[in-house]
């Protein structure tokens, strides 16, 4: 039977995790409400079986397939516009519960049965208190999968068990399907597998087998993504086209790109990894390496000009620091003497807490989902009225993934979501109508979409056959100029 002291630790660990979790996991650099609406919009389109939904599933590295697929059951089971925020919350709830469970499992290996319930309870309380600002669904799913992958890699590294390798391989495939936010971590783990296999004398003779078993699921997942992209968008590399733009505008390495909380988390990872290495705790040491790799990945994102996309990596870095902190505390509890490890853990807790408070003071308040909904309704009304004042036969194509979020839950016939913009096709399909394009500003992830890499001139002077027609905050309206048809000319002449 567990002693009262052990029981106290079993209860305190989830609590500590929860307190740090709620404070530290708020995303940075992205608008939760906008991304949540976009996520919901993609899920709804998928459930409705539209072409835009299928295109959205495979067309972006930032709205990757796996988080969308994870949200589909919730979107299908919760019909109607009113239930829309629930889709996000349900997805986040499940993802966070899994994450908690993973965290605690990693720290204690075998858990008493009630900890599952414990995790759910804490997650529910978290969501009840900060439901709209804790996490967006895509980040939550990505973080869960990334944590699972890291933990399974650490397990395989320590145990050499085939079962751990298989779990790692499938987790890596899932992580690959989470797209760009943590692509650096995905690449690192994919590279680490052959390195570990080569360096370990026990594993080296099985190098070929390990490589196939470990990497095949991830390669297959990428292959399927590419194939689907070819089938749905007629372009196998559609989701990667933006990379050319990023690579040609490399801004260089700058350590200043790291925020205070990044540096704090990195320092904690480094310190605790050193401590774990000194105590021959391979799993925790490897986690620390993962943390350092994420720090490098954040720098790469800044260098590519994708600083806005570093939120998930930053959160993951914090999560790893948290994970290592709990693992260190647990190790100190289980394997005395513990003075140095407890001291280090205390120091790290203090540093992370300062980072949390500092971040909370500096971060702007997040717009709630309700606020966001009111704002976008007003925007759509204004644009619709403007178009109506020009022509009664107007149809507005809302471009980009943000467009899916803008239209989410709206029953407006005049607006049509449009991801893969081909003006010629639109003109053929909607003859006798006045067509308009609603395009987001080329900022953040909207700067990576086909309106930019295929029709980049639209932002400077309006592209061929599209004239600037108005500006609404983050959105610009263009009118597609269409030559009148012969019968229209005849009609006018009469």
């Amino acid at each position: 039977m567990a002693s009262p002291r052990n029981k106290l630790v079993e209860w305190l660990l989830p609590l500590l995790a929860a307190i740090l979790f709620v404070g530290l996991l708020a995303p940075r650099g992205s608008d939760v409400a906008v991304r949540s609406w976009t996520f919901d919009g993609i899920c709804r389109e998928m459930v409705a079986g539209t072409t835009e939904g299928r295109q959205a599933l495979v067309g972006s590295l930032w709205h990757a397939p796996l988080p969308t697929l994870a949200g589909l059951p919730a979107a299908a089971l919760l019909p109607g516009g009113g239930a829309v925020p629930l889709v996000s919350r349900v997805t986040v709830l499940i993802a966070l519960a899994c994450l908690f469970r993973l965290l605690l499992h990693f720290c204690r290996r075998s858990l008493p049965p009630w900890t599952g319930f414990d995790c759910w309870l804490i997650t529910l309380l978290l969501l009840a208190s900060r439901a709209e600002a804790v996490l967006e669904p895509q980040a939550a799913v990505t973080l869960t999968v990334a944590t699972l992958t890291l933990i399974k890699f650490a397990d395989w590294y320590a145990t050499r068990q085939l079962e751990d390798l298989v779990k790692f391989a499938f987790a890596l495939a899932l992580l690959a399907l989470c797209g760009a936010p943590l692509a650096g971590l995905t690449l690192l783990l994919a590279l680490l597998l052959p390195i570990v296999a080569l360096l370990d004398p026990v594993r080296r003779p099985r190098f070929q087998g390990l490589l196939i078993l470990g990497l095949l699921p991830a390669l297959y997942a990428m292959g399927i993504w590419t194939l689907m992209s070819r089938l749905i968008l007629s372009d196998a590399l559609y989701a990667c086209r933006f990379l050319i733009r990023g690579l040609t505008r490399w801004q260089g390495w700058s350590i200043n790109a790291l925020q205070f909380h990044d540096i704090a988390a990195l320092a904690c990872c480094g310190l605790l990894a050193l401590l774990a290495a000194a105590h021959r705790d391979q799993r925790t040491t490897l986690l620390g390496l993962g943390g350092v790799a994420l720090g490098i990945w954040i720098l790469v994102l800044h260098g590519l000009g994708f600083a806005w996309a570093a939120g998930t990596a930053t959160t993951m870095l914090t999560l790893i620091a948290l994970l290592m902190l709990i693992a260190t505390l647990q190790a100190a509890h289980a394997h005395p003497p513990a003075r140095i490890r407890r001291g280090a853990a205390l120091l790290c807790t203090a540093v992370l807490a300062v980072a949390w408070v500092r971040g909370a003071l500096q971060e702007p308040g997040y717009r709630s989902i309700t606020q966001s909904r009111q704002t976008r309704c007003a925007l759509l009304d204004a644009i619709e009225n403007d178009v109506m004042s020009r022509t009664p036969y107007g149809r507005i194509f809302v471009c980009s993934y943000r467009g899916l979020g803008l239209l989410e839950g709206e029953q407006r016939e005049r607006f049509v979501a449009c991801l893969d913009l081909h003006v010629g096709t639109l003109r053929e399909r909607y003859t006798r109508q006045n067509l308009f394009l609603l395009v987001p500003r080329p900022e953040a992830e909207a700067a990576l979409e086909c309106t930019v890499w295929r029709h980049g001139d639209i932002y400077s002077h309006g592209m061929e056959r599209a004239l600037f027609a108005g500006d609404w905050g983050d959105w610009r309206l263009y009118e597609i100029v269409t030559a009148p048809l012969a019968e229209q000319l005849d009609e006018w002449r009469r």
Partner: protein
Amino acid sequence: MNTSAEQPSPAACDPLALAHTHPEWSAKEPVTRGQRITAILLMALIVFGLIRAPLATARLLVLLCTVFYLVATIYKMWLVRSATQPGAFFRFTPEMIAAEEPREWPVYSIIVPMYKEPETIPQMIAGLKALDYPPERLDIQLLLEADDDATLNAARAQVLPPQIRITEIPPSFPRTKPKACNIGLHLARGKYLVIYDAEDKPEPDQLKKAVMSFDRSPDNVVCIQSCLNYYNPRYNLLTRWFAADYSAWFDLCLPGLAARRTVIPLGGTSNHFNTQVLRDLLGWDAYNVTEDCDLGVRLARAGYETRMAETTTWEEACSNLRFWIRQRTRWQKGYIQTWLVHMRRPFRLLRELGLRNFLHFNLLIGGSVFATLINPFFWIMALVWFIFRPVGVDALFPGWVFAMSAFCLFVGNFIFVYINLLGCYRRRYDSLMWANLLTPIYWALMSISGWRAFLQFFSNPFHWEKTQHGLSS
């Protein structure tokens, strides 16, 4: 031990006892009247539905097949996961075997049915002599057909050690391996009995491991199945696929079943039995062309269990495509026979096996053949959809059905390939793994033999398409 003078005569044995005394357990009557009526009604219902409401009926059929695929995929994953459970195998190290000595090992009977394979005799006798078991406790019978002069002469030309004797099988219908085995069982003297094929090379300590497994099992465990694998896996692409398939089946799936204490379709050879129980069950069904699989189910129905021992018998993988298809045809025809025999009274089967084993039986025996039969239709539909994108195919996969089908197509198929890779890795066949990325071609060959088996089941149900050995040498 009995001397040959006390040996009962083969003529005194009824090798068809099961079919004579319990016809309901035998495949002698391939399809019963009730089954025929049910099949006709089902077909009529489908045709009626396709005429009256073609889209709805087609959708329903697609839905049922998709659910089957989904369940089969999850089931296979679960089985492989179960193979990592502690009870999957009996494992004995050489030290553990040595620690058993000195002990009185029980008399062990080995039966080796052979037909028209004289060239394998020297190799087979060498393999039997190499067994690490006290020779005086062995009772080995070479079961040779009385009219197979070539094999008989080859066997007689050898200087046989005293523990090996030749048993002549009187020619009669049906000319099947189980009929010969029944005579061998009748004449066996051992407490335990095992079957080996002529080209088998069992690991020398296999018999001792089997005895130790029996010793450590509860009384209702009456069969120990050894792993089977091939000694010529790198001969050509076909043998590479075949070896991976066997590795997945014997090293992952069957241990998974053993770990869950469920019904196990026995492999063709190297199944070690408690002789008396096998006699009580009237041996093998001489009319079933996969008599081993059928016997595994009958053991479970009688309340007995089968376990796996981690010891391998090395066989020769069929390296010729024509012979491979014939061998697979026989196996799949036998699975059809077995499924139909035991599903004659489904409720009785359910009562005897319990729900869990009933589901296992249907998924393993009926499900595997069903999958090979319906696979071609779904592959063609998928190809047509990829290449031509016709509207009609979309209509068959509404909403959730599409989601499930896509999962089975992209994830399920990959998982089946991956399981084969796992089997290779576990067998240390790392160099075979690349070849197994082409496994879908192997599945297509399986479907060809599946359809061949299905048609042959109606035209020639008891025909035993004998596997040709010695092709790789």
